């Protein structure tokens, strides 16, 4: 491969499908729509050079009962199971890869890092049977990534540079060590061996804690991406998980210390290192989750209206639905927030559904790669974005999973009560009314870069930015 990025007339990108092997643990139900959309991409613009980038978290290897965050062996079997569960999707990809002028590109996410392994790449090639080997491109293939000197997908389209990156590399909790996956992808004889387990905090959180909670509260699966914000939610759902949460945080803190120590070439403890501050870390997470934004004027008026009530009475109210009988102003046992408070904190972190909101992933990627007059496409956050800066365009393709509308759930107490009742039941059917679906596709061509939305049959239309 030459060092120049490949040139295309049209580039499509989709992400965060989360096709999982376990019927009970994954919520993707858009097989026909996805297949229809991919078939359309294969057949439309017949003479054009078209790339479809499947941009990370395509499959979800940690959405199953496992204690491992990176499992080469089991994940290969999982691919079989996933292909059986979603044959129409694989058939559509296969059609695309066998259509002349089409290139199917796979990029890594944080839930499908095993796809970087040579065995898994081969499995995909065998399954999809491209017309020519070049019609399937793995961005993590060292031949490609070293040629273009980029970890994601880099191409030219309509005279512009197009970068497609999953986005987890700028999320401290979900970074995948790419060099290790790439090295592992070389197969037997690789010098570095397989990535260590746990591969990152986010994946570790999923397998050690979230998968447990999902069995009882299915909606946990809809809380993505997995970052610190999910910890208070898990504890709010089941305070008895406190010990496991602390163990998780301790292991994770130690691993970070170990990594730092190894990086410094030290064999003993890092000089000056203290015990992993997992409890302090957890206190911080819980405090953040339980915090409410106080408004001085509102407080004055509310208290004025409630002046017949005693301070003690109000304090009892304000302590909320804590796990403890007597919450403390710091210190003492950990203060676990109620589910409503924890979800509210998570919602704050998501910053809503505004298409032009400059979230942390956008800022991280922009700062890392710049935007100039190019196009930058990401996923990972599950939130669609379309941000124009100068002549540059940033797109985030969100997810094809149902997306839980925390803002809707939290709008009033009765809605939250209804949500909680539904969330306590088995299955996800009762939760759809609290979710939104956005089958989002990014399209770049000579005319520009935009977001498209697929209908249930997979027909693409301009995405107007509305949220169902």
């Amino acid at each position, binding site marked *: 491969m030459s060092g120049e990025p490949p040139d295309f007339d049209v580039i499509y990108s989709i992400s965060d499908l989360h096709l999982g092997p376990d019927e009970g643990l994954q919520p993707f139900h858009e097989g026909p729509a996805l297949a229809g959309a991919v078939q359309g991409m294969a057949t439309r613009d017949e003479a054009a050079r078209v790339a479809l980038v499947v941009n990370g978290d395509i499959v979800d290897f940690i959405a199953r009962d496992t204690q491992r965050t990176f499992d080469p062996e089991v994940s290969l079997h999982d691919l079989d199971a996933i292909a059986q569960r979603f044959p129409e999707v694989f058939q559509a990809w296969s059609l695309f890869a066998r259509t002349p002028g089409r290139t199917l590109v796979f990029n890594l996410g944080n839930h499908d890092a095993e796809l970087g392994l040579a065995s898994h790449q081969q499995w995909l090639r065998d399954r999809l049977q491209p017309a020519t080997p070049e019609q399937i491109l793995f961005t993590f293939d060292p031949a490609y990534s070293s040629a273009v000197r980029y970890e994601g997908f880099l191409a030219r389209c309509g005279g512009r540079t197009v970068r497609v990156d999953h986005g987890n590399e700028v999320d401290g909790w979900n970074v995948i060590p790419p060099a290790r996956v790439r090295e592992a992808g070389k197969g037997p004889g690789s010098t570095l061996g397989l990535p260590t387990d746990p591969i990152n905090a986010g994946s570790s959180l999923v397998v050690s804690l979230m998968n447990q909670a999902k069995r009882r509260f299915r909606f946990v699966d809809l809380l993505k991406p997995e970052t610190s914000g999910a910890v208070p939610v898990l504890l709010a759902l089941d305070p008895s998980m406190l010990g496991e949460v602390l163990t998780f945080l301790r292991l994770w803190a130690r691993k970070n210390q170990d990594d730092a120590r190894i990086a410094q070439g030290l064999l003993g403890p890092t000089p000056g290192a203290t015990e992993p501050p997992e409890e302090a870390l957890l206190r911080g997470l819980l405090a953040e989750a339980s915090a409410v934004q*106080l408004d001085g004027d509102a407080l004055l008026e509310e208290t004025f209206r409630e002046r017949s009530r005693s*301070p003690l009475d109000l304090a009892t109210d304000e302590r909320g639905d804590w796990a403890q009988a007597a*919450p403390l102003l710091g*210190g003492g046992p950990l203060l676990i927030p109620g589910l409503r408070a924890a979800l509210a904190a998570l919602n704050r972190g998501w910053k809503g559904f505004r298409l032009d909101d400059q979230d942390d992933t956008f800022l991280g990627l922009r700062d890392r790669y710049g935007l100039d007059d190019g196009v930058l496409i990401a996923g990972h956050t599950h939130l669609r974005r379309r941000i124009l800066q100068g002549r540059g365009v940033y797109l985030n393709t969100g997810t094809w999973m149902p997306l839980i509308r925390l803002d809707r759930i939290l709008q009033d107490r009765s809605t939250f009560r209804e949500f909680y009742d539904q969330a306590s039941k088995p299955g996800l059917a009762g939760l759809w009314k609290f979710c939104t679906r956005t089958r989002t596709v990014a399209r770049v061509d000579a005319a520009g870069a935009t977001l498209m939305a697929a209908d249930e049959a997979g027909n693409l239309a301009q995405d107007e930015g509305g949220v169902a």
Partner: protein
Amino acid sequence: MTRREEKIRSIRLELVRSGEDENQLLSPLTPYLALVQNRPAEELRLPFQHGEFLELHRQLRYEEGPERAAQAAQKMAQLLARFLGGLKGLHQELASSGADLFELQLVLSASELALLPFELLTGSGAMPAGASPFPGRTLILRQSRRQAAPFRSWPDCPRILLVASSAGGVVPAKSHLRALQAAAELFLPYRTDLPGMTARQWLGDHVEVLAEASLHELQRRCREGSYTHVHLLAHGGEEGPPWGRRFGLWMASTEGKGRQLVSGQLLADALRTGGGLPSVVTLASCDSGNQGSVLYPGGSVAQELHQAGVPLVVASQLPLTFAGSAVFTEEFYRKILRGEDPREAVLKTRSALLSLGPTGWLDWASLVVYADLSASFGPQVRRAQRRVFQRRIDARLAWLGHGIAGRGDRSSLELETEEQARSFEGKLRQLMDELQEGCEGRARVEALAFCGSAEKRWAEALQGGVAGASPWRQRLRVEALRRSRGLYFEAFRSGGPEVLYALVQALVVDRWLREQGDSGAEELQDGGAHARWLLDLTPGPARGAEWHRASLELELLSADQPPRARWLLGAPGAAWECYSLLRQLRQRYLVFVKGEALRERVETLARELEAQGVTGTWSSGAMWKR
């Protein structure tokens, strides 16, 4: 010496050792010297090791739950009782006085001793009565050997800032604001049920809120206005390595994102931005009185604030419960804003926390007070007490009609029946009795004159409203004016020529009574001539606005021609006297006087004042004087 002064006995207990303040552990091997008042120094040693203390302290901080904390409190109290119980000098000092409140000034310079929760020995929460070396009503005031900040003036008119931060987690902000509002209600001139009344109007500048503040925002607020009391509600937290941890308060980060742990020194710097520091800072926050590490110099948030110049700091040396923090705020502020001595207030707050039972866990023992009260503190408190009572009376009277405070339309309190009026009058007179209680000398004269004024205003209020002409109102009005006259005259008799205005007011009220058909007071028969004689004795340069006002009113009562106001208008400090006189003319003379000649003179004088720009509105918030 008044009865209130006799109640509190101060005893200074200083514990010292050789060496630097920091970097020593608690150990039975370390000899300490105890200096009690001016008694001979005594040596004492701790009956426990540092490790034993740390374990108990961990339990006191509820790390093994509230039941273990209660057991640890008993054990700790026993150890501390053994430590201090053998001090003969302390025992003798405590036994030598019949005081019913002991203020133990505990001066600790050694960091490791500041760790110890001596407050467990006060009250009956951790040990049975009689087992503690201290009498039941003992308050520990922690001090350092370095001179901190004595009070210049104990505040009598609160301007409270509530700083509430949820940066460390949810806090019971509404509860604390409600507690502060409830305490300040005494001072508020507005009723809450007036149409369109908002919280800000109601509270005025007595209680303000700063929510989710960073230190920058706190600085800005303190630059804009000075506060008498600052109440901080925030989660406490700790930072630093295990061997050097320090406690602070979680506030919003000054960088606009996230949070930061704020030390006492940083807080003090922010509070000082306006030039001065508040007199009182209360910290509703876990571990705000926790010394933290003994290895390095520095102290708790409370200690640092005190050393930086805040005269009185009340904090929590252990974790503080939501419920306990609410009770702490409610009790402490209610007591001090009512004019109680803050030492009494802390004792009563501790009792209230103890009576919370299991809900309050060890909050009663957690309260820790840093204060350096000079010998003048008692008189300061009593002076403030009197002003507090005056403000409370002002506020009650202002409720009768906002016009009385010059703040808008009159909106009379329901005084439609004699029963309602008698009830209101009873409360008013109770406050007046409390104001006069224990007052001597100049303070008594001022209190009598103030009450004379209050009765006058009460009579004025009884004149208004639809039932203004009813017989019971007439009866109550005459009774109020008689009391007013008696109080003014008593003030003059006690204070002499210096309070000549009181004699003049007694004469004025006497005239009003006679106009109402009441008989005049015998002792005032020659009062007019006497007052004139006294006025004439005052040398010209000493004739200020007060003198001219008195002179004008005397002339008004006696001369055939209306007096001229020009001397009063040109006198220094005339603004208040002009306003007050105009109100008196329009709302009292013209209401109580029936005689045409006098009414005409009053009208002429009032018009002259108005022509010179005097209005019946007083906006500076100055207190009623007479």
